[in-house]
């Protein structure tokens, strides 16, 4: 019964119409929230509790071996989704599966396949960093020799080697987060859930984390991560589900999602002389919606495409006797996409 690892194929995570209604008094920790939709009233007509709809028929499928992102603002239902997929939140309706196992009917089998990093640190304050990893692995039936070797290796990988013998009480947020992720990897889970893995981390630690997550994924494991950071979703995820009000409102690769927004590309062209004469000609290009000056010698083209415009721009500039010193294409961002789908910014 040692680590149930193995490169998996097919679907690893499936959610079918997940629905979750919280009584306000039992809403889970963290900044999640959902939206109140009904006030419960007593006979006397006084409101006592109001229900919060956290998941509203959320459906998604995650393929084995992919890095899947749940992107959405705080309170969109990301953490509740992770909870419902990891046995910690009982859905009010719908079903969830990890591999072949129903999350609610076969909780123990499901727990063997998953590793979970919660948004709020939940390390064991009575134990040292090394003990935390070792006991976690012991719960999964790993032998002492096996788990001690693995703990050392992971502490090293997460640059926590010199902390092995310390109690975690005084650890900084970044140290705790690294240790939490190391702990979740200890038993080599087939599916690793990371709820806001890089929230509050400094840039170097974030990069280290991304690197380790990619490594873990490269070994054939599935990653499901939540984030409200579009840069992270863009950099890490093969596919992204954009979640809002407990529903998936868009799904695809980051590039596909970005392409689905009309316009959204910005092509900045730096000329070697003032290009005022070109503006009207560039505006007439197919796909270009607007052209604005960006400094003395530069123009911003707002368009529904990026690269394909460049040859035309170069040709047109040459015809006008202008040289081009720089071209920069900004692809549409997930931030723009979220705005497009919800009319709200991710950061709101």
């Amino acid at each position, binding site marked *: 019964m040692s680590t149930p690892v193995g490169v998996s194929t097919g679907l690893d995570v499936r959610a079918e119409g997940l629905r979750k209604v919280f009584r306000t008094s039992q809403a889970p920790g963290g900044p999640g929230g959902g939206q109140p939709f009904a006030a419960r009233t007593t006979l006397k007509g006084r409101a006592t509790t109001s229900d919060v709809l956290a998941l509203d028929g959320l459906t998604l499928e995650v393929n084995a071996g992919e890095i899947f992102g749940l992107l959405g603002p705080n309170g969109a239902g990301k953490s*509740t989704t992770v909870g419902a997929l990891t046995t910690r939140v009982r859905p009010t309706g719908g079903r969830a599966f990890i591999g072949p196992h129903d999350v609610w009917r076969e909780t123990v089998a499901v727990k063997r396949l998953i590793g979970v990093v919660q948004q*709020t640190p939940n390390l064991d304050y009575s134990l040292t960093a090394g003990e935390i990893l070792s006991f976690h692995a012991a719960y999964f*039936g790993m032998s002492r020799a096996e788990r001690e070797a693995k703990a050392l290796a992971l502490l090293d990988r997460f640059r926590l080697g010199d902390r092995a013998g310390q109690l975690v009480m005084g650890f900084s947020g970044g140290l705790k987060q690294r240790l939490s992720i190391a702990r979740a990897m200890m038993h080599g889970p087939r599916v690793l859930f990371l709820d806001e893995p890089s929230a509050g981390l400094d840039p170097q630690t974030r990069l280290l984390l991304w690197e380790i997550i990619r490594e873990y994924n490269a070994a054939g494991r599935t990653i499901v991560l939540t984030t409200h950071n579009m840069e992270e979703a863009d950099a890490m995820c093969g596919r992204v589900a954009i979640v809002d009000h407990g529903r998936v409102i868009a799904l695809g690769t980051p590039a596909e999602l970005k392409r689905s927004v009309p316009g959204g590309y910005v092509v900045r062209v730096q000329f070697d002389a003032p290009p005022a004469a070109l503006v009207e000609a560039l505006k007439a290009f197919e796909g270009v919606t607007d052209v604005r000056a960006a400094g003395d010698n530069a123009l911003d083209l707002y368009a529904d495409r990026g690269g394909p415009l460049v040859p035309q721009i170069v040709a047109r500039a040459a015809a006008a006797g202008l040289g081009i010193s720089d071209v920069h294409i900004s692809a549409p961002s997930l931030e723009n996409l979220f705005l497009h789908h919800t009319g709200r910014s991710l950061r709101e």
Partner: protein
Amino acid sequence: MNWKAFVAMLQRDWRVARRNFAFLLVQTMLQPMLFVFVFGRVMTRSGFMPPEYKSLLLPGIIAIAMMFSGIMGVAMPLIGEFQYTREIEDRLLAPIAIEWVALEKIVAGALQALVSGLVVIPAAWLVMGSGVDISFHAPVIFLAFATLVSLLAASIGLALGCFISQTTIGLMFSLFVTPMIMFGSTYYPWSALAVYPWLQRAVLVNPLVYASEGFRAALVPQFPHLPLWIDSIALAAFVAIFLTLGLRLFRKKAIA
């Protein structure tokens, strides 16, 4: 049932108990020892209490020490682990049904209570000095009864630990633990309450009464006591009630 995970959790608790040994010792022993010193030594030596009171007191002290350490041993860590450190989440995600996570707490707390009971006997004896007249004429029955008391203490700890929030810990003591000790037939036999018949009947809802009276039956049968079989049945019933309640509350807390 995943015994490997269960045993690993017990080992985790054992590691923590060893690390906090001095703290645990003071937490569970200081209060009963102070009572033993004041009532068992000072009051008897100064003549305000007859010397026989020492023997009457000891079973009650054992009951308090066990009950207190079992309740604290489960409730305090649970309150902290659920609400402050959230560290229980790692065990809730272990490949074992979550009821077993609660039962592991019960086993660990009961062991702690049992050890407290076994340590408090010689310690109290020592503090009270000569004149303690108790007999271990039936060690197996005594141990079996002590195990039952330990399980009860841990079960109450589970229910309380899942029921009480971090902000109301103080209330737990003043509302629950202190009245339980004062009306638990610990410093006097249950029969002494015959002077207040309504009170005598009311305290029968207090499980500590049966623990104290049972230890009196097992160790100092020369004093009036409720028969051991009644005590045992009552304790078993309380274990069933608190365990059921505790497991239900635990599940509610563990799963949103």
